[in-house]
């Protein structure tokens, strides 16, 4: 069974990847003191004796952080411990005020659970290939709660400066099993995890802002082999797509080493996103001796004394459930539902917009997902328009709820109105786009815009008959063609009527009138 690996080629190897994700929790205060859990502001402005580790201070755990960790565990299907405790993890480092980190060692809050890889969570360019591993569960080992460390800055003169504002803020560590087998799966895992964290209001989970940080363990092995290969740890991963790129590079590097007869050395490597490569930070060091022991300053915590119930009451509708409901209640396509489910504020906006007339849900979704998102991409002009709108908004539609500025700044009801004009055929699709653009630019309602732009379709039969008569009189050739049996000739006449009516004629009615007149 042990075939000499040197005979294997690159495609004979598979990657084995496990992720340790640190997530900053959205709480008002730090984990063990009442300083603001907030970034920005002058260095060392959110510190107190406790989070500076002064002599004599004591930690008191933040209830909200515990609840949010339990909630995360619930959302990910973990078992929640009925009792947990905090431990001291001892090591010296200047970014850690006490030279021990308060963490959880052998009694974490959550154990087990999994993250399911939704197809849409994969990178767009890989979704076709990813179909096979979509819905694959990535099992979790545990989730525990700990405190974050300070931020350090490095200077040219050989010194470092430390800002303790971040020190002691609540941090959740989510450890996966080594179930991930490709860079794309790692990408999907992080995207899906991020989505769930956002759903629960647990964290904004933005990797670029450091709200979600990820350490990667990666090894390769010949397909079919059970034992793990020697792993390397990757650091400095600052975006989900960066993780994918780094893994792609690192897998290729490791395969290259092995297929050219070398051996993987246990290393910590740093990803350089600009250069697109990983470089050696350090080789295997002697194992850390963290000397964990229960923190005698903190009582063990019982989750069954109210904390679990509080977490339960915060349980949101999860992405999978939301998708099903959007399809069922609003007649959306699976794709539309999935895209909306990936953006909770947009989905909430959608629901407000579509609720008054759910049968038009698909049309409302189209305006939001195609027209609005496309417009957003066409950025600067739109951003300017939006800025202008903000003022209009406060007077005309102050009740509009804007969770984040990434939403249309108009009353969601306008979307229903617009969809209604469009699906009923009162305006055509080209006109609808125009109304849409104006609606966002001016904040005026579709009804008002249709009127102002003179787009109200003319359905008055008398008026339309006059236009039709005019067209018939002016185009004897088309009339003759029609009478000779060329049904299509009616379209030319229809076009004429539309022109005469400046596009306001109801095309369906015009067709009917023309055929009636020509057949007479």
């Amino acid at each position, binding site marked *: 069974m042990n075939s000499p690996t040197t005979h294997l080629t690159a495609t004979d190897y598979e990657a084995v990847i496990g992720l340790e994700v640190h997530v900053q929790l959205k709480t008002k205060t730090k984990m063990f003191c009442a300083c603001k859990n907030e970034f920005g502001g002058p260095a060392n402005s959110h510190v107190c*004796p406790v989070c500076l580790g*002064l*002599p004599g201070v004591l930690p*008191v755990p933040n209830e909200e952080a515990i609840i949010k960790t339990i909630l995360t565990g619930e959302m990910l299907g973990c078992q929640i411990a009925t009792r947990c405790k905090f431990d001291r993890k*001892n090591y010296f480092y200047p970014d850690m*005020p*006490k030279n021990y980190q308060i963490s959880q060692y052998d009694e974490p809050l959550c154990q087990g659970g999994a993250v399911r890889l939704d197809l849409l969570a994969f990178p767009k360019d890989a979704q076709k290939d990813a179909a096979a591993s979509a819905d694959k569960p990535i099992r979790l080992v545990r989730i525990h709660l700990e405190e974050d460390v300070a931020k350090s800055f490095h200077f040219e003169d050989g010194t470092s400066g430390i800002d303790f504002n971040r020190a002691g803020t609540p941090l959740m560590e989510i450890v996966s099993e080594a179930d991930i087998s490709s860079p794309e799966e790692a990408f999907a895992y992080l995207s899906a995890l991020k989505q769930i964290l956002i759903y629960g209001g647990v964290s904004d989970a933005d990797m670029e802002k450091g709200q979600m940080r990820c350490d990667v363990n990666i090894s390769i092995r010949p397909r079919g082999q059970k034992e793990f290969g020697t792993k390397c740890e990757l650091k400095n991963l600052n975006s989900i797509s960066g993780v994918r790129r780094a893994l792609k590079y690192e897998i290729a590097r490791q395969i290259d080493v092995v297929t050219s007869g070398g051996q993987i050395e246990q290393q910590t490597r740093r990803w350089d996103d600009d250069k697109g490569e990983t470089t050696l930070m350090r080789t295997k060091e002697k194992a850390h001796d963290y*000397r964990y022991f229960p923190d005698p*300053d903190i*009582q063990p915590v019982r989750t069954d004394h109210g904390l679990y119930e509080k977490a339960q009451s915060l349980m949101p509708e999860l992405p999978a459930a939301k998708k099903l409901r959007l399809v069922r209640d609003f007649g959306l396509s699976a794709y539309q539902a999935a895209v909306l489910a990936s953006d909770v504020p947009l989905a909430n906006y959608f629901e407000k917009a579509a609720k008054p007339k759910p049968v038009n849900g698909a049309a409302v979704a189209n305006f939001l997902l195609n027209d609005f998102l496309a417009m957003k991409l066409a950025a600067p002009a739109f951003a300017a328009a939006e800025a202008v709108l903000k003022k209009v908004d406060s007077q005309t539609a102050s009740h509009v709820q804007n969770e984040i500025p990434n939403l249309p700044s108009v009353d969601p009801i306008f979307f229903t109105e617009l969809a209604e004009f469009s699906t009923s055929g009162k305006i055509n699709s080209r006109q609808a786009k125009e109304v849409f653009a104006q609606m966002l630019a001016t904040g005026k309602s579709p009804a008002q815009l249709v009127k102002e732009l003179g787009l109200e379709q003319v359905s008055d039969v008398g008026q339309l008959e006059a236009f039709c008569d005019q067209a018939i009189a002016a185009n004897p050739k088309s009339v003759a063609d029609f009478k000779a049996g060329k049904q299509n000739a009616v379209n030319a006449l229809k076009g004429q009527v539309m022109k005469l009516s400046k596009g306001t004629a109801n095309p369906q009615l015009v067709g009917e009138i023309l055929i009636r007149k020509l057949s007479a």
Partner: protein
Amino acid sequence: METTSLTIPELRQKLSSGAIRPREVVDQLAARIAAVDPKVKAYLHVDAEKARAAADSANPALPLGGVPIAVKDVINVKGDPCTCASKILEGYVAPYDATVIAKLREAGAILFGRTNMDEFAMGSSTENSSWGPTHNPWDLDRIPGGSSGGSAAAVAGHEAFVALWTDTGGSIRQPAALCSCVGLKPTYGRVSRYGLTAFASSLDQIGTFSKTVEEAALLLEIIAGHDTRDNTSVNRSVPKYAASLGMGVKGLRLGVPKEYFIAGIDPEVEKAVRAAIDAYRGQGAEIVEVSLPHTQYAVAVYYIIATAEASANLARFDGVRYGRRAKNPKDILDLYRRTRAEGFGAEVKRRIILGTYVLSSGYYDAYYNRAQKVRHLIADDFRQAFKKCDALLTPTSPTPAFKLGERTQDPLQMYLADIFTIAVNLAGICGVSIPCGFTSGKLPIGLQIIGPKWGEETMLRVAHAYEQATPWHKEKPPL
């Protein structure tokens, strides 16, 4: 009028009647210190000017209005140094008040002077202070006990009325016994530890030194109580401890643990303590023999748990954010290693190394985990014993004060000085040491009274009954 020998109630009476002004009290105390402290060396720093200013604005109507209180140099007082008798905290000025300090301020007390101690409270003789030892006021060639030797000596030598101290393994009771004063260690969780520089978090507790039991009761009423800043402080109402003093011991059952009268105990100490037990019987208490079979393991358990916790608690003294920093460090590792090597004394280093070792990979189960389990058994011994009695009577220290330098080269011998006090900390219960006579060489002997969790009321009542029936607390050292 001479005030330094007064008790707190006596002093309060003179202050509130206007017979004496707070400033005069401070002046007299400062004069007494100037006269005797060069011999005793009880104080690390005294800021008499600051105390005078506080005295001038003192409100005698408050429970401790105008009463000067000495504080162990391990409790943080905003704007004051807090060195823990260690060079590593040289230059550190506390930017906040410990909870007990806030409570004392609220009660009108004048914070007066910082007393000497073993560095970071690690010691049984106050010889481990970076600023030299304190001397026993009863015999200047002898140690005052430790780690709170400075406070005990100050109260015994009438250089302080009362003092606030901490007890991790006997640091209040043992020096109180060796200096003939009252040393109270409350139940773990009774008094907030917030602002007390930690030695061993699961054992440390703030308590009091005083000349009388009544003063201890009055002070405890003020400093006790739940604190939301201390997760280990317990939310229970605080009894009026002083109110139940004077009720006597008739009808109480007092236990005598047989394991506390063993080989190695000084015969004069044993004789004095046995006489005290007889005195209680004479006052109508029922004396019962009890057994605390795991007593013999207490010192071993203590030196594992206390050093383990200390190794982590003292990691923060690293020269990065406050205190001493080694000169011209070549890198961060060098900064840590030299700062800590230069800043800590030998006993602190010894304990950090021991504590680091018992937690290190491969040894945790054999030492730390096992010690925690034996600690459980020790606590259980007490629970069983308190089913048979209301309080326990034991010697506080197996010997009277030993000579300075006698045990400094033999840490293990030194550790055994706390053999009768340590189990109380391990079990988280309360204990008080009161004067119980003198040896033929006029060295003080202490009687320890141990109460169950939250049993301070009865324990103090028992202590008071003996104190009032004996003359010991009225004797003054020949300074």
